C-alpha cells in the first residue's frame, strides 16, 4: 500500500511499463485496423501524452495499458508498479487467462478516467469517488474530501451523477481515478466533452492533482496545443493507410 508514496522523485527512473512489438488487430465493417507498438517505455512519475485524431488507436493503447484489452501479439509486455519487485509479465497473464490477477493489479495501481460517464448512476458523488477505495478496503483518510475540494465539487458530494453537469461529472471521474492514490492514472480524452475553457481548467486540475499524488500520467488527447504547455512527453505517433485503404496502421513508440 506504500508503493504510491515510494514512487517519489528518488526512483524517477524506474520503469513501470516496458513494451516491445505489441500489436492489436481490429476489424470493423471490412476495414482492418492495426496498432503497432515497436517499443514503449514509461518511467515512474512520467507524464505521457498520446496525441492523435479520434479513431487513431489511442484508446486501444490505453486499454491495453489498463489491462482491459488483450493484445493480439506481444514480444514483451512488462509491468512493474512496485520498485524493487520483479516485473509482471502482462502478456503471460492474458495467455493464461489470469484475469483476476490483471484485475487485482488494475484495482491496486491504476486509475482510469473515461471520455464520458463511467460513473455509477445509483451512487452518490461521494460514493462514486470512494468506489475504488471501497473495493480496496481503504480507510477514510480525508482523501475524498480533499479531492472534492480541489475539484470544486464539495457541494455536489451528496448528489447523484444525473444531477450534475457534464463538466462536473468529469471532475467526479477524475476524483474517482485518483482517490486510491494509484501509481498510474490513465485518462482517455478526459476533457473532450467539455467546452475549451472548462477543458483547460479541468485538465490543469487533473495534472496538478496527479503531480500532488505522485502518479504517473498517461493521457490521450486530440489537441496538442493545450497540453504542450503542461510539460507532457509526447509519444511518437504515425498513422498510415494502405493504397486501397483497407488497412489503417498506427505506430506508436516512445
Amino acid at each position, binding site marked *: 500500500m506504500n508503493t504510491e508514496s515510494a514512487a517519489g522523485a528518488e526512483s524517477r527512473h524506474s520503469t513501470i511499463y516496458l513494451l516491445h512489438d505489441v500489436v492489436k488487430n481490429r476489424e470493423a465493417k471490412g476495414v482492418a485496423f492495426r496498432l503497432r507498438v515497436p517499443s514503449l517505455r514509461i518511467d515512474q512519475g512520467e507524464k505521457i501524452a498520446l496525441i492523435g485524431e479520434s479513431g487513431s488507436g489511442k484508446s486501444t493503447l490505453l486499454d491495453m495499458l489498463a489491462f*482491459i484489452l488483450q493484445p493480439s501479439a506481444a514480444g514483451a509486455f512488462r509491468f512493474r508498479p512496485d520498485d524493487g519487485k520483479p516485473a509482471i509479465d502482462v502478456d503471460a497473464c492474458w495467455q493464461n487467462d489470469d484475469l483476476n490477477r490483471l484485475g487485482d493489479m488494475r484495482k491496486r495501481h491504476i486509475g*482510469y478516467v473515461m471520455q464520458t460517464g*463511467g460513473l455509477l448512476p445509483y451512487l452518490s458523488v461521494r460514493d462514486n469517488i470512494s468506489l475504488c477505495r471501497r473495493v480496496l478496503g481503504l480507510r477514510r483518510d480525508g482523501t475524498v474530501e480533499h479531492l472534492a475540494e480541489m475539484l470544486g465539487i464539495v457541494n455536489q458530494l451528496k448528489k447523484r451523477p444525473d444531477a450534475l453537469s457534464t463538466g462536473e461529472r468529469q471532475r467526479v471521474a477524475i476524483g474517482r481515478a485518483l482517490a486510491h492514490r494509484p501509481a498510474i492514472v490513465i485518462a482517455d480524452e478526459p476533457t473532450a466533452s467539455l467546452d475549451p475553457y472548462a477543458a483547460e481548467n479541468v485538465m490543469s486540475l487533473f495534472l496538478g492533482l496527479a503531480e500532488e499524488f505522485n502518479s504517473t500520467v498517461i493521457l490521450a488527447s486530440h489537441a496538442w496545443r493545450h497540453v504542450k504547455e503542461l510539460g507532457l512527453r509526447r509519444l511518437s505517433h504515425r498513422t498510415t493507410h494502405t493504397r486501397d485503404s483497407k488497412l489503417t496502421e498506427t505506430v506508436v513508440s516512445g
Partner: protein
Amino acid sequence: MIRNLFKIFRLATRDYLHEWQMSVCFVLGLAAVLGPMMVLFGLKFGIVGAMMDQLIEDPGNREIRPVGSGRYEHSWLESVRKRPEVAFLVPRTRSIAATIELASEHVPRIVPVELIASDHGDPLLAPGSPVPEGLDRVVLSRSSANKLAVKAGDRLDGSLVRRYLGQQERVHLPLTVAAVAPEQAFSRDGAFVSVRLLEALEDFRDGRTVPELGWDGVSANTGRSYPGFRLYARSIHDVAGLRDAFAAIDVDVHTQAAGIELVQRMDRNLTAIYWAIAVIGLVGFSLSLGASLWANVDRKRKQLSVLRLVGFRTSDIVWFPMVQSLFTAVLGWALAVTIYYATAWVINGMMADQVDAGQQVCRLLQIHYAIALGLTSGAAVIAAGLAGMRSARIEPSEGLREL
C-alpha cells in the same frame, strides 16, 4: 471473497432501489404471470380435491347392492368378504322380516323401524363409536332416536308379532341404545343391529325356535341362505372391478360406478387441461422472466464493465445480476401470493354457500407456495447466471466504449 460479495450485494441493492421504476415493472411483470397461475392451480386443486374428498368420504359411493333377492350361502359370502378390495360385508335377511316396533320410557307412542344388518367397521357408522352387538345392543338412526327421545345408554322395548299355530303372538325384547348413528347414515326410522339379532327375528317370524331368547317354534334353521348383503368396497377405485367380478358370476349388482367414473374422468380431463395451461404458462413465464433479466444485464453492460474496471473480479460481477434477479423473483412471488390470496378470498366467498362448511373452492398447501418460490428463484438464477456470464465474457474495454 465474502467481503467482495457483500460489496456487490450492496451495490446491486442500491442499483435496484435507484431504478425502482424498472424494478417495479419487473416485479409486476413476474406477478402478472405467476399470480393467475397460482389461482388456476388453486382452483384445480380445490375443486377436484373437494370432489374427490366427497367421493371418498361418502360411503354410499363405495356401496355395492345386489339387485333383487337371491340365495347367498354363508360360505360364499365369507369368501367374498376375504377379497382384499372388500372393506365391509354383512348378510341381509328378508326385508319384510327386518322390522321391529320400538317403545321408550320417554314417549307414549310406538315407533316401527327398519332394521339394518351391521357389524364392526360399518362405513355408515361413525368410526370409533359403539357398534351393534349381540341380541340387545342397537344403534338408532337419528330420526328414530328423535322420535323415541332417547340417547346412547337408554333402554328400549322392542316387540314383534307373528301368527303361529293359528294365533297372534307378540314377544318383547329388551334393547339398549349403543349409539345414535350420524344423520346421513340412514334418513328414515331405522336401527342398526347385529346379523345374529336379524336372524333371530326372521326365525321367530318363520315360526322357528330361538332358544337364546326363549321363543318357541319348530326346529332351528339349518343351511340358512340370505336374500342379499351389504357390501362396501375398500375405495371408490375398487367399485368398478368388483362390479365386473360379480357380473362374471351372474350376480347383478347396483353401484355408483358410473358416477365415480364420471368424476374420475372429469378429474383426468381437468388435470389435462390444467397441465396444458400450466405448461404454456410456465414456458411463457420462464421466457418473460428470462428475457427481462437478460435484457436487464445487457442494458447494464457498461455499468458492469465499470465495476470490472475498478477491479471487481469476473466471478464477483456475475453476482450483480443474480442478486437483482433474486430480488425480482422473491418480490414478484410475494406479490403473486398476495394476488392469489385476494382472488381466492373472493372466489371462496362467492362459492361459500355452494360447498360444504370448511371446504374451499380455491386452495393451496404450504408446499405449493414453496414450490412456486423455488421455481421462480431457480428460473431467475439460471437466466441471470447465463446473462451474467455472457456479459462477463466480453472484454471490459468493449463494454466501456458503449454508450
